[in-house]
């Protein structure tokens, strides 16, 4: 629980073949903060989010230069264990994607992969994760029912619980509410506020009001560059760059 910067990105460049998708990104993310990435489609914000747990490694033709340091260690170092990295840096996607198994098994899946077998320990992890993701009260009586029977908003909170079950440090969220109704959206937003006590959170969102509501810092991406990174309050009341102003006031795009 060290104060200061959890993530520090130094001169990060990413190429999809010939396409220069991220240009010389420099960014610091404070511990226990929520940082929102905003920008028009194709600006590189999701690509950037995925560089934080090396999800881009799986895409053919990607070349990356520069450093992404988490707790002052470069995660692109050759000696790094990528599986351990993804355990520390969890990710939630746009569409809820529960496994076609029971609620309980969805959450126990990760810990089991990491070698936890004892039922009482797994029970504890399942309950704790579901409580943290504010789903426990709604599902505690049907833990062994199929996860796909839950509503969209519940499924998304289940996916968050599944990430929390392996006790990550950092939570990456790629438009986690864009497929949800307003009430489920608010629940997730409330949850983010609660979760930042325990984790460092980075979130990509197309919803400007959402970024304004839930984040501490906001970074505005355009054409693979970070145009402005500042306190969220400054970005939304008095942005320093004309291009940020044009984007958030809807005069561009």
């Amino acid at each position: 629980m060290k104060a200061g910067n959890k993530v520090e990105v130094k001169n990060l460049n990413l190429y999809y073949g010939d396409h220069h998708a991220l240009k010389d990104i420099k960014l610091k993310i404070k511990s226990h903060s929520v940082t929102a990435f905003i920008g028009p489609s194709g600006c590189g914000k999701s690509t950037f989010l995925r560089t934080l747990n090396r999800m881009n490694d799986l895409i053919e033709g990607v070349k990356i230069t520069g450093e992404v340091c988490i707790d002052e260690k470069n995660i692109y170092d050759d000696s790094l264990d990528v599986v351990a990295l993804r355990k520390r840096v969890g990710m939630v996607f746009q569409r809820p994607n529960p496994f076609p198994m029971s609620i309980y098994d969805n959450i126990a899946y990760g810990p089991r992969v990491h070698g936890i077998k004892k039922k009482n320990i797994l029970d504890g992890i399942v309950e704790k994760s579901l409580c943290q993701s504010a789903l426990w009260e709604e599902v505690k009586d049907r833990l062994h029912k199929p996860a796909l029977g839950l509503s969209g908003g519940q499924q998304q909170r289940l996916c968050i619980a599944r990430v929390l079950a392996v006790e990550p440090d950092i939570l990456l969220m790629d438009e986690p509410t864009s497929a949800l109704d307003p009430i489920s959206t608010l629940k997730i937003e409330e949850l983010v506020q609660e979760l930042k006590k325990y984790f460092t959170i980075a979130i990509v969102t197309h919803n400007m009001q959402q970024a304004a509501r839930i984040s501490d810092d906001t970074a505005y991406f355009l054409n693979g560059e970070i145009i402005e990174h500042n306190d969220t309050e400054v970005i939304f009341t008095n942005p320093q760059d004309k291009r940020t102003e044009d984007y958030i006031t809807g005069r561009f795009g």
Partner: protein
Amino acid sequence: MRESFEEELKSLQQDILQMGSLVESMLAKAVESLKNQDSKLAQEVIKMEEDIDRQEKLIEQNCLRLIATQQPLAKDLRKIVAGFKIITDLERMADYCEDIANITLRLADKPLIKPLIDLPRMSAITQKMVKSALDSYVYEDVELAYKMCKNDDTVDHIYAQIFRELLTYMMEDPKTISQATSLLFTGRYIERIADHATNIGERVIYLVTGEKKELND
């Protein structure tokens, strides 16, 4: 992009400008009614105040609607918030004008203890301040806002002078006290109107630069 919203912001500014011009002419008429002991003109000012209240409510409603339906951000947001505050300043100014008109009515049947020279002078400067304040809002002219605020010192200065002068009248002849206090209040009201004009200047500076400056010292 967002053309109808742009139009709405423009018409919001126009409405505020119109409300402001009305206040400007209220001040001119109120002081003139006092100077010429013109009860009819004073009545007119009192009637105008109702109009101002109506306009304030309308503009306020408009601001609220724009915030609720357009979720404005950055400069758009500052523009609306500045407008929201400016109409409160304007409404207070109109109240002071009405107060002056009421003094006119009260003093109507007695001759003035002295011809009024400094109060109209003070009022003229203040009217100019109100006009400049509104111009600086509409043209987003920070320099004009700063320049306008400087005039507040002149207004304060004239007010201090009026205060001293009326004090001598009251000391010489206690029978003047009642009227002299009314005139003193008038000076005070005009001085407050000038303060509200500098408030508008501060809002304009916030609107344009995003910084909050204190110009009333």
